[in-house]
């Protein structure tokens, strides 16, 4: 009985999660007439691909998608590459400097984006990074980093220090212990951080709006907003079609690496 209830709750949750995506799919396949029907339908009566055709014809969705992909993958990889050693250091070496550093990282999160966006733009311009994907990647890395650091620090702290000591007793140096013992245990944390960084960068709009100026370098969020007019009136069909396509890379990325997102690796690692 409890099992059945659990499954029911799980099913409810799944429906809750899937609803927006399914509605998006349904809208993307509807004609304008059907979208304006007083009684909405789940399954389009006359499914059409015209919205996709319009979206592709009017905006460079493929180009923008590829550029978004480059920025998001680069952001995710660079963020993890930088945050991982930093998180290890902050978790393991607990001195005053570490506390100040972690506090400072937290404080950096409280500044609203609007406060820093213009100075940031000027810094980037001096470095000739305005209007470049490299510039946007640098900014995304900077802004994803604090949270990534906190996330990874938590994962590192969850790995018992005793495991490293045991490795040392067995004759492994610090690097060997890190590579052979700690790194595999951190895999779920790294995957979670990769996902977080990727999705943050993939969806990011405001920095892209300010930093990227030419149509040839624009990322996907900038092209999606083109289907929205004044007073919130939107061209729902093409917008839904383009948005649906924009969710695909995130889903693929997630599906590819989610198997690594498992816990319980350390169950029973340390006794007593």
């Amino acid at each position, binding site marked *: 009985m409890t099992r059945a209830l659990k499954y029911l709750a799980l099913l409810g949750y799944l429906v809750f999660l899937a609803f927006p995506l399914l509605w998006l799919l349904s809208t993307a396949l509807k004609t304008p007439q059907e979208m*304006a029907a007083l009684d909405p339908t789940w399954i389009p009566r006359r499914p059409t691909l015209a919205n996709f055709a319009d979206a592709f014809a009017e905006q460079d969705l493929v180009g923008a998608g590829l550029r978004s992909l480059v920025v998001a993958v680069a952001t995710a990889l660079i963020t993890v590459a930088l945050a991982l050693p930093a998180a290890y250091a902050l978790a393991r070496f607990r001195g005053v400097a570490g506390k100040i550093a972690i506090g400072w990282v937290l404080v950096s999160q409280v500044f609203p984006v609007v406060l820093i966006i213009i100075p940031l733009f000027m810094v980037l311009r001096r470095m000739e990074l305005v209007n470049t994907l490299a510039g946007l990647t640098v900014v995304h890395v900077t802004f994803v980093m604090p949270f990534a650091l906190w996330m990874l620090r938590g994962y590192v702290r969850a790995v018992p220090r005793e495991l490293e000591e045991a490795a040392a007793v067995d004759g492994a140096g610090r690097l060997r212990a890190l590579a052979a013992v700690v790194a595999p245990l951190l895999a779920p944390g790294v995957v979670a951080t990769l996902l977080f960084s990727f999705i943050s960068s993939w969806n990011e709009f405001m920095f892209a709006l300010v930093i990227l100026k030419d149509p040839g370098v624009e990322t996907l969020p900038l092209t999606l907003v083109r289907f929205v*007019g004044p007073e*919130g009136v939107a061209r729902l069909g093409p917008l839904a079609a383009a948005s649906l396509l924009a969710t695909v890379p995130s889903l693929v990325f997630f599906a590819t690496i989610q198997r690594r997102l498992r816990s319980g690796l350390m169950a029973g690692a340390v006794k007593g």
Partner: protein
Amino acid sequence: MKRLSAALAVAAVALAAGCGSGGGDGGGDAASGEPVKLRFLSLAWQKESIEANKQIVADWNTANPKIQVEYVQGSWDNVNDQLVTSFEAGDPPDVIHDDSPALSSFASRGFLLDLTGKIPAELNGDIPQAAWDTVTFSDGKSGQGVYGVPFLQESQVLIANKKLLDGAGVRVPTPDSPWTWDEFADAAGKLTKKGAYGVAWPMKSPVNKVLNLALNFGGTFFDTQGGKTTVKVGPQEREVLQRIHDQLYTDRSADPSALGMGTADPLPGFFAGKYAIVPAGVYLRQQVAEQAPSGFEWVTLPPLKGQTSQQGAVSQTLSVAADSKHPDEALKFIAYFLNGPNQAKLAKGDWLLPTSTTAAKDPALTTKENGWDVATASAKDLVVAPFLKVNGFDEWKSKVATPAMQEYFADKISLDELAKRLVEDGNKVLERYSR
């Protein structure tokens, strides 16, 4: 978004005070023989409008190899945030599409080029003074300047279900003989049947709609004397408010459940025969034409008449950035982009009204199809919206007028209470801007 713009503006001012000029980015100066490059930020978003914009730019580029224009598409949703940062950083687009309410603050901060005396006579004469008034603002010192070329405007019309109108036997108004507000109330009453209402007033954003329509009875809502602006809500301002309220709660010919809707939201109910008339800006005809079920007959009815048919209007505009390195070329491009034939294409693409008197005669804008004849004829009654020149209007609108009007239309407060709030709370807001 407005709040974000304001925050950006504050950040920008603070920063400018702190670190001086940004200067140019050093690229792109045209040496002799090299083509000048202009960046044109366009906000076109309708399919036909984007096509028209791109076509006009392509034609220009072919005819002017020495002045090449790059078409950059922006978005209404965030254009002012985008512009604040690029103005402040000294790297704005050369030619900027926006609307007149946004120009005022950009102009007073010196971000836009004053076009006074620079506009070619032909373009100047083709656009009526009432439209130029929508782009004439203080230069932030003591003078006035013209900070854009107005090109598209919107009037409020009524979109009606033809079959229901005929069935109720009401007179179909024409531009020469529009409905008065009394006739409108009468017609809405006749069109109200069981389960169907004569009219749906979508009042999610009621302020601009009410203020623009209030001019029908001479209601301006603002009074400027000796350089000081105050809010006024007298009998003239109360007329439209009272009449809409009466339709909702006295005649019961308007559906109260439509009040929370945005402009396009009543359309499903309109198509299903639940509402016979939807008051809307002329651009909504595009959505009606696109979304109406086959066989659905609809008509565009001319603006209502009170003492006059006057309505307040703002304009979509093209401006030149003060930091543009090629202002003369930018102006040449604007003069071409907004000539009569081109304005006709742009107006058609966006389903709006051209300011160009030549464009207004274009057969595409005077045809009976999709109510173009009625829509285009309504342009003659547009005058500059009185609120356009009021410093602090945006804050008055969002903090005072919008919530108060929403409560009034929801029948939670009386008209007297609404007037009191608009005036007393409103004047406190405006006071801060006049210091």
